[in-house]
């Protein structure tokens, strides 16, 4: 039992030649779930961010009877695509065990809109992600290392693509641990993240924006602002099972994703 961060991917596929207003998004392609994972008394969970990618200025809405209201709930609309900080980084919305969210997205004509929800759990069964604070990483950091991973998002929109972190280069040093500070990408994606043994095989994602500001240090900043450990730490020896996960609102987006890693002394 332990910490976990999970990213839930939803999409709305608009096959019509007209734009659609807010429509219930599905997790059919991603295989994720909009049900909050069950946790025991004393634990807690929060929704920390939503990353939205559409073909134009799109709306996203999150609904649940357990949110502020179940009418407009949390509604966002931005021309920024992919969106980066629809949630202020200091903020998390409390989630309730076993509650089920409804996520709605608008979509332009003949296009897809996708969104990724970043969930933080203080303690759930079966998962204990290896997460650190910036203070812990800073104290043990030897080198900064950027690792390029050439990725191509799925041809089926709304589906995650996992690409092993050694696909493009394999320079991580055996027996060391590495902390993931953030990312950069050469092409816009909805989300990019890490998935592997250290994360309980859940995806821990950042917005897939091409801007470097705050994306290259996304997990550092999020942890500092939330005052909880958010920096994934993995063993180099697990590299063969550690993946970079991406998703986009168009099919087969090719990008070079760079993982910003801190090599740790212990």
């Amino acid at each position: 039992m332990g910490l976990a961060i999970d990213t839930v991917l939803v999409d709305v596929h608009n096959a019509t030649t007209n734009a659609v207003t807010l429509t219930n998004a599905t997790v059919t392609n991603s295989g994720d779930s909009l049900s909050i994972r069950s946790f025991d008394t004393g634990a807690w969970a929060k929704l920390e961010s939503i990353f939205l990618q559409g073909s134009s200025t799109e709306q996203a809405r999150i609904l649940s009877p357990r949110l502020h209201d179940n009418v407009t709930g949390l509604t966002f609309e931005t021309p920024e695509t992919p969106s980066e900080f629809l949630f202020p980084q200091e903020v998390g919305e409390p989630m309730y065990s076993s509650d089920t969210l409804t996520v709605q997205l608008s979509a332009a004509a003949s296009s897809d809109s996708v969104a990724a929800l970043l969930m933080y759990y203080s303690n759930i069964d079966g998962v204990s992600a290896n997460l650190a604070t910036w203070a812990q990483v800073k104290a043990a950091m030897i080198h900064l290392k950027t690792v390029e991973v050439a990725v191509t998002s799925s041809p089926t929109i709304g589906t995650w693509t996992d690409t092993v972190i050694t696909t493009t280069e394999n320079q991580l040093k055996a027996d060391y641990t590495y902390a993931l500070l953030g990312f950069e990408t050469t092409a816009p994606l909805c989300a990019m993240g890490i998935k592997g043994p250290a994360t309980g095989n859940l995806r821990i994602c950042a917005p897939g924006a091409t801007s470097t500001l705050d994306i290259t240090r996304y997990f550092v900043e999020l942890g500092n602002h939330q005052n909880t450990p958010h920096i994934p730490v993995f063993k180099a020896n697990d590299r063969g099972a550690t993946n970079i996960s991406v998703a986009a609102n168009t099919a087969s987006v090719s990008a070079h994703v760079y993982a910003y890693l801190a090599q740790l002394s212990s």
Partner: protein
Amino acid sequence: MAGEPVGQDRKMSWGAQAAFASLPASPNQFLGKSAAFQLFTGRYILAGISFSETAGTAGVLTVHDGQDATGEILGVFPYAANGGVNQLFGVVGAMSEIGAYMSISAGTITGTLLAVPTWTYDITAPGQ
């Protein structure tokens, strides 16, 4: 909610749940529904239901404690064409352990299911 909030309380005592049942219930609305749907999931104390039929077709709403129509039946509410139902569930309400799944036999209904969620954070307002 930055930092580490006080954890959620889910398994409250029966006495505490009885006290919760006396709290004002929250609305859980449903709009223009003509097919079965999941209204919410989790443990709630149901306090009442209010809805009207708008398509001119009589039918029956069956509320199940579950995530599909195999869930235990919490209530059965027949309604007339363009009619309505307003029903309170007594002083202590009715417990939904899994959630509220709403089966609609015919027609289109709009209304709300009044319920008190029984798992809370220290910051959760009473009845919310």
